[in-house]
């Protein structure tokens, strides 16, 4: 059996250690080792975005990251978006706008959208579409997702003001 390496990392603000084979992707480590199964696998080659997480401030598809690369990194997943019982405005807007049907792509969309709003608090429709082009949704046709992101942006701006 393959020898495992020890990885120390930070996930959603919590210092975390795990053992993995080098060939295990970060996605596998999150799901199968750490049981953080909110991050989904849709294609395992970076083209669907269901496994999107934030790694050291950059959006990445965790299927294209090796587990050991998480050493010393800061990882943020869908499980870290809500603060305790309080849903993030994006999560709330996704529910209010019916921006999910089957929900399998939703974690990736939420992680990506959250980062978009952190970089660009009032994105245009076209900016949202461009940013989210790495995330495939087959159920909604994207319309309600775009509206949910716009709604969350507006609400977050109102809270700030």
């Amino acid at each position, binding site marked *: 059996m*393959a020898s495992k*390496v020890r990885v120390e990392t930070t996930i959603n603000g919590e210092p975390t250690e795990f053992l993995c*084979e*080098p*060939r295990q*992707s970060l996605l596998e480590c999150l799901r199968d080792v750490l049981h953080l199964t909110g991050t989904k696998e849709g294609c*395992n*080659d*970076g*083209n669907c*975005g269901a496994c*999107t997480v934030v*790694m050291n401030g*950059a*959006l*990445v*598809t965790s*299927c*294209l*990251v*090796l587990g*050991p*690369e998480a*050493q010393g990194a800061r990882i943020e997943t869908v499980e870290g978006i809500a603060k305790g019982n309080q849903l993030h405005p994006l999560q709330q807007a996704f529910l209010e706008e019916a921006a999910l049907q089957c929900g399998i792509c939703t974690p990736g969309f939420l992680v*990506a959208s959250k980062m978009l709003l952190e970089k660009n608090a009032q994105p245009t429709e076209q900016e949202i579409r*461009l*940013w*989210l*082009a*790495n*995330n495939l949704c087959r159920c909604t046709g994207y319309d309600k997702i775009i509206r949910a992101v716009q709604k969350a942006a507006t609400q977050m701006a109102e809270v700030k003001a």
Partner: protein
Amino acid sequence: MNEFEYRAPQTLAEALADYSAHPSAKLLAGGTDLIVQMRAGRKTPDVVLDIKHIAELNELSYDAAKGLTLGAAVPCHIIHNSDVVKREYPALAELAGIIGGTAIQGRASIGGNLCNSSPSADSIPLLIAMGAICRIASAKGERTVPVESFCTAPGRNVLEPGELLVSLQIPAKSKGTGSYYLRFIPRNEMDIAVVGAGVEVTLSDGKISAARVALAAVAPTPLFVTEAGAALIGKEPGSEAFEAAAQAARNAATPISDMRGTVAYRKHLCAVITRRALEAAVAQAKERQ
């Protein structure tokens, strides 16, 4: 995926020593090509060297004399958002925003795109057009290679076992120079170029004084079309000159028919995309005069 050993050297010297000890190792920067290929069984290394912790490979600096030093492992999202790149090399900043999607740009590097040496790589035509030079190092020493001489066949390049790409040097751009990369893809993002064209033109006294044109996805390697550049030099920037360059590009292309397009379609697109890229580059050149 086969088993392998993962190593993450922290210095260039350490990486070169490791690499010379394991010449069949594969180098990992963003992993957006390598991990896909390993998962598909197309690459089965015993050792993977993660080279993105090395300072030289993460350098992104600009000097008015030397131009831009772009470390081979700098991810696209850094390039795309870099103020100096946006100011001095807007086409490069834009390019870094169209490779893959947002989450691919979080990892993928221009250096990796070059070393993967796909004929359809988006970055290579622009690097050729901008006259980029590869800085290559091994335990034995260093050498430089112009980007247009880097790729040798689909997936192959001039790197010898033990050699790694440290950085790219892109000359500073004089006033009146404009560059552009344009590709044709069926979707609007997340797609492989059917045809791509990287162009650079310099205008002086209302005429084109320098021009370079390179193409993606129309030959076994990215194609530097010197005839297209020659067709532009000395001409006034306009449809006649662009058309001549476009025809030169079309004539130089030797594409294959595959699921992305037929020979006839790709040759046709070469002309269209080259012309449109030139129009954009000239517009930029005029802005930068």
